[in-house]
């Protein structure tokens, strides 16, 4: 922080050169009765050492992520973040740069976005991808709005496994847009494929079908059976939108193979720390035919007069600053730095690394579920295939158990499903990433076993010898 005393005297000298006697003269256009007579009622300023202390004191009232094995998922995952990402994004040239509206002095940002767009196309099997969205949830909402502009149908069908949070964001965005949201029938936690043709035929035309892969319960939807089920419906085919976890695409087939028209998702698993849920980044990829309906920014290759290759923002006429009231989206600032993190992550891992991390998550999650469901009274909630997350039925209230496990063992055991599904208070959503070691998983299993065996009143309590979390 610069010396405010020194800055003030330089400013006073400037006042004289401007040709006014006082600052009040300079702001004559602000009605005097609106000018604050005294300073705002805020705490006194803190020096850097005091800020560190303040943040340190406040963080002691949080759990310590460095010492707390976490099995929390539900859309935000505890994946390894390679050191190089932090080193590169600490560069001022990346993180203090503005939006690349003057391409000649922003080739760094633009080239990286071009790489990002390429990598997303490769992971998803789509033709074009934009420069990022705020998050996967708003990306899904924008995908439905794009579908509506193409298909004009009055309904959007959501698979039952779409995250309740994503559903909430979609509902807010689509409110007043003339599209009714309908949740499709469920079978074992996944989309009921047999019931899909009927659901498509019964009711007004559907402009879109949204499926999440893996779904909120961690299950893998039968994307391969969707094209057939959708074709069996009468009328215009709805726009198929798949919300795909990008890390899972290291081993899962790109949704483009199954006729997806638009693929969206959240970038958080690709080198972005949880940050209590934000900021993250979203991605948005679609077919070449829809490139002019893409929300957000798009980077294209370009040449200068000397024939040198560079990159520039393109199709800006779609965007709000030119199209104004005719814009398809109002998005301006998006998630540039987070998309850069994802790009560097994918560059570091390469095709081998993204496959390795996905396979490790798969193996560790399956190992964990096997151990947990071997405990008496614990069953898997669903039978279908899963990737890195699964739900288990504990036969007892999950909230109390989870609180007790954290208090006694400093482990975050999972997300109680009762928070989203009122009837499912005994179930727990458990995520297992490549960071969870054999010991972590063993400790979780033992902690769950211990918690289940405790008498009812004692389950959520800590052991008096442990420090308060």
């Amino acid at each position: 922080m610069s010396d405010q005393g020194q800055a003030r005297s330089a400013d006073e000298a400037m006042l004289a050169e401007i040709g006014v006697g006082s600052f009040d003269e300079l702001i004559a256009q602000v009605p005097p009765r609106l000018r604050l007579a005294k300073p705002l009622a805020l705490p006194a300023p803190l020096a850097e050492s005091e800020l560190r202390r303040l943040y340190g004191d406040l963080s002691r009232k949080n759990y310590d992520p460095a010492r707390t094995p976490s099995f929390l998922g539900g859309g935000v995952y505890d994946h390894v973040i390679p050191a190089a990402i932090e080193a590169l994004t600490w560069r001022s040239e990346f993180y203090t740069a503005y939006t690349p509206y003057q391409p000649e002095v922003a080739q760094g940002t633009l080239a990286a976005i071009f790489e990002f767009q390429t990598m997303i196309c490769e992971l998803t099997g789509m033709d074009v991808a934009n420069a990022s969205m705020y998050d996967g949830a708003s990306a899904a909402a924008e995908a439905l709005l794009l579908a509506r502009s193409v298909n004009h149908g009055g309904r959007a069908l959501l698979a039952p496994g779409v995250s309740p949070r994503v559903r909430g964001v979609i509902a807010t965005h689509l409110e007043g847009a003339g599209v009714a949201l309908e949740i499709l029938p469920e079978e074992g936690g996944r989309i009921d494929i047999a019931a899909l043709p009927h659901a498509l035929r019964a009711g007004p035309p559907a402009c879109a079908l949204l499926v999440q892969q893996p779904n909120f319960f961690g299950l893998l939807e039968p994307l391969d059976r969707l094209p057939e089920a959708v074709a069996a419906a009468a009328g215009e085919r709805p726009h198929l939108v798949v919300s795909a976890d990008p890390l899972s695409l290291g081993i899962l087939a790109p949704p483009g193979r199954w006729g997806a028209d638009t693929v969206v998702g959240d970038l958080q698993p690709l080198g972005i720390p949880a940050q209590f849920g934000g900021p993250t980044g979203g991605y948005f990829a679609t077919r070449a035919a829809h490139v002019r309906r893409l929300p957000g920014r798009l980077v294209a290759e370009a040449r200068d007069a000397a024939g040198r290759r560079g990159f520039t923002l393109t199709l800006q006429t779609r965007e709000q600053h030119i199209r104004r009231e005719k814009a398809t989206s109002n998005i301006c600032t998006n998630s540039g730095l987070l998309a850069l993190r994802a790009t560097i992550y994918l560059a570091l891992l390469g095709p081998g690394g993204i496959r390795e991390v996905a396979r490790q998550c798969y193996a560790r999650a399956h190992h964990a579920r096997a151990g947990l469901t071997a405990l008496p009274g614990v069953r898997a909630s669903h039978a279908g295939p899963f990737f890195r997350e699964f739900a288990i039925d504990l036969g007892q209230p999950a909230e109390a158990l989870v609180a007790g496990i954290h208090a006694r063992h400093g482990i975050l055991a999972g997300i109680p499903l009762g928070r989203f599904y009122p009837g499912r208070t005994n179930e727990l959503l458990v995520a297992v990433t490549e960071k969870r070691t054999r010991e972590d998983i063993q400790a979780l299993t033992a902690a769950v076993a211990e918690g289940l065996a405790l008498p009812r009143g004692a389950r959520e309590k800590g052991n008096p010898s442990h420090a308060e979390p």
Partner: protein
Amino acid sequence: MPNPDRPTPAPPAEAAACSLQGAVEVIFERSVPGEPGYRFARLDVPEAPPEGELPAALLREQPPLLPEVSELEVMRHYTALSSLNHHVEKSLYPLGSCTMKYNPKINEELARGPAWALLHPDAPESSIQGILELLWRFERDLATIVGMDAVSLHPAAGAQGELLGMKLFRAYHREKGNAKRTVLIPDSAHGTNPASVVLSGFTPREIRSGKDGRIDLAALDSAIDAGTAGIMVTNPNTLGLFEKDIEEIAARIHAVDGLVYMDGANLNALVGLALPGAMGVDAVHINLHKTFSTPHGGGGPGAGPVGVKAALAPYLPLPRVVREGEGYRLLQHDSRSLGRLHPYVGNVGVILRAYAYIRSLGPEGLRAVSRAAVIHANYLMRQVEGAFPVAKREACMHEFVSSAAWTRAHGVRNIDVAKRLLDYGFHAPTVSFPLIVPDALMIEPTETETRRSLDRFAAALMAIAREVRETPEVVQGAPGCTRVGRLDEAEAARRLQVRWTPPGAPGAGDPRG
């Protein structure tokens, strides 16, 4: 007349010096097949090959085309890319309404620390009291700064804040049974304003600015009717002028039970000086990545929290932090809330930086921000207006708009002046906005610039003005000292090469090589 979107060759001497280093590279071009990637810890649980359990149809057959590079190559490549960027720590970004102020390093250090950066939002509430307390305090501080009763932290950017504001208006009017259709917007407004209005289901109605560049009260009166849901104002407006009649404007809108939304992009002129809440504003968004120093990131992330008056508070999105006894919790359900906007509670990482900024400045520091911002803008305006006349001959707030219209007589446009500034080592100001000033250059220096930096910028503009008269071809051909010259945007939009393809693949590359 030269087409500003089509590049003109730079003067030979300057071009030759810069063409040695070749094209801007992409990471794929460094790929070496077989190069091992990032090393993960070995699997210490039993193998579980997905192909054993999953139907083949669900599994990838071909690996995705990603580069195979070592960590050193990754570091070299992205470091090289970074050197091609302008950034705040290189020199000034005089972009109007962007408030490109210095981003204090302590804020980065605090927010990136694992103790904060790795917190998961679904941890038990008893284990996240620190972050909940910080968010609650931040909301209160923002409410104090803008003079509002409640704040939502959900919006991920200013434009999302505007969208939230318009949805709050709808919720308010719906509950009162008001039949409202239109939202008034001054013709000087930023493009996100009408876009946000349309996206929320209202119809924008433009009102012409008066001769002094401010909202014209007569035009306002003829635009207001019973169907007016509200107005969206920016104050100071995009010309850098304070809307002196803002209280009267608000009163006339309130008279038809309309609401006043303020786009807070220009809040840097007002912090500690005046309260939007005292001006009759009902909702205002705050750009944390502008006024509150959080970094721009090359296009995000940002955050656009919205402050509202009590009448709109019941509709705010959920979840939000509430105080309960000595502790804090997340309120998840309220029948009047318009629902969820952010997937969680907001862009907490950005908020962590902004809160540190507010705590480091304190009340006097915040007041000094707007004071210095206004002084610097007026000082720079006086230096520059001889060469590039200012639209309105009066003091400005934190930004001003010059016109480069005179350069047309020399075969030059405002965009050429902007490009020539790049050669002088500065970023260009905002160009061709607001639409109501011909060939506009919108300039906002911010409070963190020194006098020396402002003088150097002014000197560059004066030099360019001279070049326009004496050697216009140098300005027309600018930039000549950057790694690439002006790019052919028309050709880029026609070709639409928006992803890298391997040489030899269908659709790969450009026949020109």
